[in-house]
């Protein structure tokens, strides 16, 4: 084959590929699935509503709390919305987990969540070989784990659940209700959480730091340094110095949601939407989905080698088996024959002995007769 003609400094238009991609993506839109996990009362619903500046989820109705039975299970609630900004559409799904960690005995409360995550991966896996592959993709792209602002360290429930989740989904730990902790305490708390996470080998989502853009690198480093993110959420607007901001109005001041000195909400929002949304979506497909796929397929006995090699290996294995069996049969036969010979030998020996005995008997009889004869002859002579 002739080598391809090298192109000199002539622009063919390949550099236009990103623009084409941009057009395709902005026409197709994206589907984005976020899951929130955490005990009730940590501000998950408020956070989701603040993040998308829209009432995504209704708050729990307190009047209904006596009506329902405490059935001690964790439920999976999916809320869908179509969001549009500057012509770009996103099919957003928010998955909530009410009942998680709310009971006195929380053993295995993470099982429904883990099952849900696995089911989504399995659903896509099953659809790989089906003729019509278009299906709803509910694989979770980002899982926000809400940590209680105790100020101490992670609880055993947090550690156990994060271990289970981090292998199946992009896990982002978040410190909820951050306006409970003073700044100095918050730094110490984050340190301890990071320590805990690394000691227990929990793989949280870490965005790649280096990129060609200086700004981006700096932004990524600051994002990484702030993990786990502390958030304050509010849907109410309050007046601060004549400006209207989102915040929580206390008697002693206003805790602002978008103020970087108060909490990391802005950083988290940038991560989730502005800068790393695509990262999260692709890493879910390329990393977590692939992990699931490999695990499931090797478990069902398939492997990567091509058929001829596999057949040969199978054949060799069969040969070895047959050889071993023949050998066994052979030794068995030999043993049987030896036994037979031995028995024959014994019989011959006993036969010989018997005959010898007979002979001896005859001999002694003959001797006796001879003696008698001599006596008779001796008696006659006299």
């Amino acid at each position, binding site marked *: 084959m002739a080598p391809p003609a090298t192109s000199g400094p002539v622009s063919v238009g390949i550099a236009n590929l990103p623009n084409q991609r941009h057009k395709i993506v902005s026409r197709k839109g994206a589907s984005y699935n976020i899951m929130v996990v955490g005990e009730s009362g940590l501000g998950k619903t408020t956070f989701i509503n603040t993040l998308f500046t829209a009432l995504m989820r209704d708050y729990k109705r*307190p009047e209904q709390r006596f009506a329902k039975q405490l059935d001690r299970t964790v439920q999976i609630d999916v809320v869908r919305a179509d969001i549009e900004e500057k012509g770009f559409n996103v099919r957003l799904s928010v998955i909530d987990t009410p009942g998680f960690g709310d009971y006195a005995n929380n053993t295995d409360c993470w099982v429904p969540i883990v099952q849900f995550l696995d089911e989504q991966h399995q659903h896509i896996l099953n659809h790989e070989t089906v003729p019509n592959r278009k299906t709803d993709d509910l694989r979770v792209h980002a899982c926000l784990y809400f940590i209680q*602002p105790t100020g*101490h360290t992670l609880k055993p429930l947090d550690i156990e659940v994060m271990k289970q989740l981090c292998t199946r989904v992009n896990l982002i730990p978040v410190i909820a209700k951050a306006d*409970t902790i003073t700044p100095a305490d918050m730094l110490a708390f984050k340190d*301890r959480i990071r320590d805990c996470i690394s000691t227990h080998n929990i793989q949280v989502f870490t965005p790649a730091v280096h990129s060609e853009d200086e700004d981006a690198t700096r932004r990524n480093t600051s994002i990484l340094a702030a993990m786990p993110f502390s958030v304050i959420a509010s849907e109410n607007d309050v007046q601060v110095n004549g400006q209207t901001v989102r915040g929580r109005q206390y*008697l002693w*001041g206003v805790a602002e949601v978008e103020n970087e000195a108060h909490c990391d909400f802005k950083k988290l929002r940038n991560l989730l939407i502005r800068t790393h949304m695509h990262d999260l979506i692709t890493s879910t497909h390329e990393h977590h989905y692939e992990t699931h796929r490999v695990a499931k397929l090797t478990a069902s006995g398939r492997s990567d080698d091509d058929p001829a090699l596999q057949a040969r290996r199978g054949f060799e294995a069969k040969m070895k088996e047959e050889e071993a069996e023949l050998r066994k049969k052979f030794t068995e036969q030999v043993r049987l024959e030896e036994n037979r010979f031995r028995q024959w030998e014994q019989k011959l020996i006993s036969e010989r002995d018997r005959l010898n005995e007979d002979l001896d008997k005859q001999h002694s009889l003959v001797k006796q007769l001879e003696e008698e004869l001599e006596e008779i002859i001796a008696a006659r002579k006299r």
Partner: protein
Amino acid sequence: MASSGASFKSGGARRKATKKGLVFTVMIVGASGCGKSTFINTLCENPVILRKDHADAEKAAQLKTIGLAPTTVELDEDGLKLSLTVVDTPGFGDNINNEPAFEDILGYIEHQYEEILAQESRIKRNPRFQDNRVHVLLYFIQPSGHSLREMDIEFMRLLGARVNVIPVIGKADSMTPQELNAFKKRIMEDISHYKIPIYDFPYDEEEDDEETIEENNELRSLLPFSVIGSEDEVVISGRRVRCRQYPWGVVEVDNSKHCDFSKLRYMLLSSHLHDLKDITHDVFDDDDEQD
């Protein structure tokens, strides 16, 4: 039998009060991170409970047992000496399965009653015997903003039958005033719906005077008490204030507009101390003796 025992006790108690000062035992229960230890230190104005060492990440995942450790502090309340014993319960509510913890705490409380009973039945009583019966139990509720959780309901119901239980909202600086009022209302609704026995400042319509009735009503309306604790003192406009400093403002512990800490402290250590003790001795102890 019970009445003669009571009169003997009250006479002896009065003598003890003038000599040694009052004796009072408070138990604090609640999930970790609610501000219990800070509250105790703020109440006693001394670092009574030392900070737990949270630096060990390995230990964070392990099963925790409740460490019930009484600590005694000598306080001076308006010239009256008070020997306050505080029982903290670190580790409560920390584990994945928290049901065994209930039994531990109930066992401790019952054990104190049994000890007293054993002491009183002896022929030769030990004069230096310390009465460790728990006079009041402060149950810390997490400031979720929703309503009582299953663990709260079960626990308060179980222990309200054996000891005075007062529900308290810890870390109250995480809620705005409207949220706090709504939360308090919902908790009281829960308490009446699930029929949880708590100490709700009872008064006698006929016997008590107007002032007492008014006071009790006011305190009852504040239930559950919202507390903020802090051991840090800062000088603000010339005076030393215990507070928490945030980038957006300063929360003062002793400011009754910010939280109910000062009212709770006054109620516990001054105005209702005797009432709580009497109920413990008469009502709960009698139940025990009749068993």
